[in-house]
């Protein structure tokens, strides 16, 4: 589904990735762990086409990212296939939880009625019923992350990037989020899980560590 082929990337003089190669296959659940500033968020930004590698190539669903980026329409279509939770993905401050959850489906082309219906179903799974009409600033952190996951489910994405979804959460809330991810994995969704910690104990197929601009098992 996603392949990094000898990717080089630097932020100014700071080298982030050097000769980075890895493959994320369809339907797999991969955890990439690494300390802060190790390049996890940069990895996401390269995948979604926010950044361009200095060298090498990134392939998404069999197509070179440089090709995808050359057409704004194709880049948008690629981004619509991705569900993002945490990191650079967040809720919109001036929309209610329900509106936020329905947003991705709406952008993906669902009718307002279908997007709302799908959002309500997803919110139910994440126990967001009591906060549907609340704004993100007044709900708890776990509810915010649950809302982001619900947004992914409401638009039926088949590729999810989660960036530190359980960071800062208590054990019970973290378990709930990880269980939902495991359930999504079972339904055939590809998951890329980035964390500063160890990641979920059960569910993922592969654990990788990012260090010094390279990925190691």
């Amino acid at each position, binding site marked *: 589904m996603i392949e990094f082929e000898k990717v080089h990337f630097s932020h100014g003089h700071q080298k982030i990735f050097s000769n980075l190669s890895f493959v994320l296959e369809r339907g797999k659940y991969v955890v990439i762990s690494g300390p802060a500033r190790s390049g996890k968020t940069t990895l996401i930004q390269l995948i*979604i*086409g*926010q950044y361009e590698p200095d060298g090498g190539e990134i392939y998404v669903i069999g197509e070179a990212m440089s090709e995808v980026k050359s057409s*704004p*329409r194709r*880049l*948008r*279509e*690629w*981004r*619509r*296939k*991705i569900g*993002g939770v945490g990191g*650079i*993905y*967040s*809720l*919109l*401050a*001036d*929309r209610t939880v329900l509106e936020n959850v329905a*947003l*991705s489906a*709406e*952008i*993906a082309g669902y009718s*307002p009625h279908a997007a709302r219906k799908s959002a309500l179903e997803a919110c139910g799974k994440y126990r967001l019923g009591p906060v549907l009409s609340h704004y993100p600033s007044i709900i708890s952190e776990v509810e915010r992350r649950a809302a982001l996951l619900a947004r992914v489910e409401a638009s039926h994405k088949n590729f999810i990037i989660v960036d530190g979804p359980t960071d800062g959460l208590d054990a019970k809330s973290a378990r709930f989020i990880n269980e939902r991810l495991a359930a999504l994995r079972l339904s055939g969704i590809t998951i890329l899980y980035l964390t500063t910690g160890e990641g979920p104990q059960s569910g993922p197929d592969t654990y990788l560590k990012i260090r010094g601009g390279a990925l190691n098992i």
Partner: protein
Amino acid sequence: MIRPQRFFSQISRHFRREKRLSVGSFLVLLIILLLVDMFWLASVNISNQYQSVLKTAKVEIYIEDTFADSLLSFFKITLLQFEDVAYVDFTSREEAARILQNEFGPMILEGLEANPLPRSYTMSFYKSKSLADLDMFAHQIINLEGVSSVDFGREWIVKVENIGTGLKRIGLFVGGLILFVVLLTMANTNRLTARTKLQEFTQLKLLGAGPSYLLYPFLMEGFFSAVIAAGTGWLVIIYLLEQVSFTSFSLVVPTNTEIAIYCGVAGLTGMIGGYLGIRRFLRP
């Protein structure tokens, strides 16, 4: 594509969040468009005044003292044969003296040995004549035997025409300038709004939102702000005109269709301004 209900919720959300910016830009638009309205009103009325001057134009033909009274009836027939002549009225020396005395008092002709006033004809037309038509007509009349002079208040007509032409030119220039200001105002307001919504824009783009999704609320906001400002401007003008009564002339206000077209043009300008303000934020 964004749906209308989302658009209205976005507009109200934006208004709630950016009250001062929204109210400020609306008031700026209102004041600018009020200026356009006043120029338009002045231009329409001057032009109307000019047309009415031309429509009521009367030509005074003064007869030479040596022209025999017996020829006057033939002379009148000659005048009646000109195109579009509505009537030809004769004014004798005595009648002219009476009119003069009525206007300036019985003493006006006192001390004069004889009545110095000439005989004259007054002509008017069915159709409104242009200045060129009247000039040509006067030229034809003056060449008739027995005519000493022809007068149709040319200097007044020229004055009104010059004011009308000048106002039209100024109106076109100021109108163009003001539409440009509307464009800039909308562009700047939207640019400021877009800056406050940068985080939202980034998120929407990450989710794959296209330019139309991002652009639509701004285009509509630009359109409706300008349309409402233009409409309100006219309501203010019409209200003010109702409070003031003009006794010497009736003020002409543009028709509803003209005002609707004007509001549409203002809306379109606001929409273009909306696009100009936001376009740099549309890159994926």
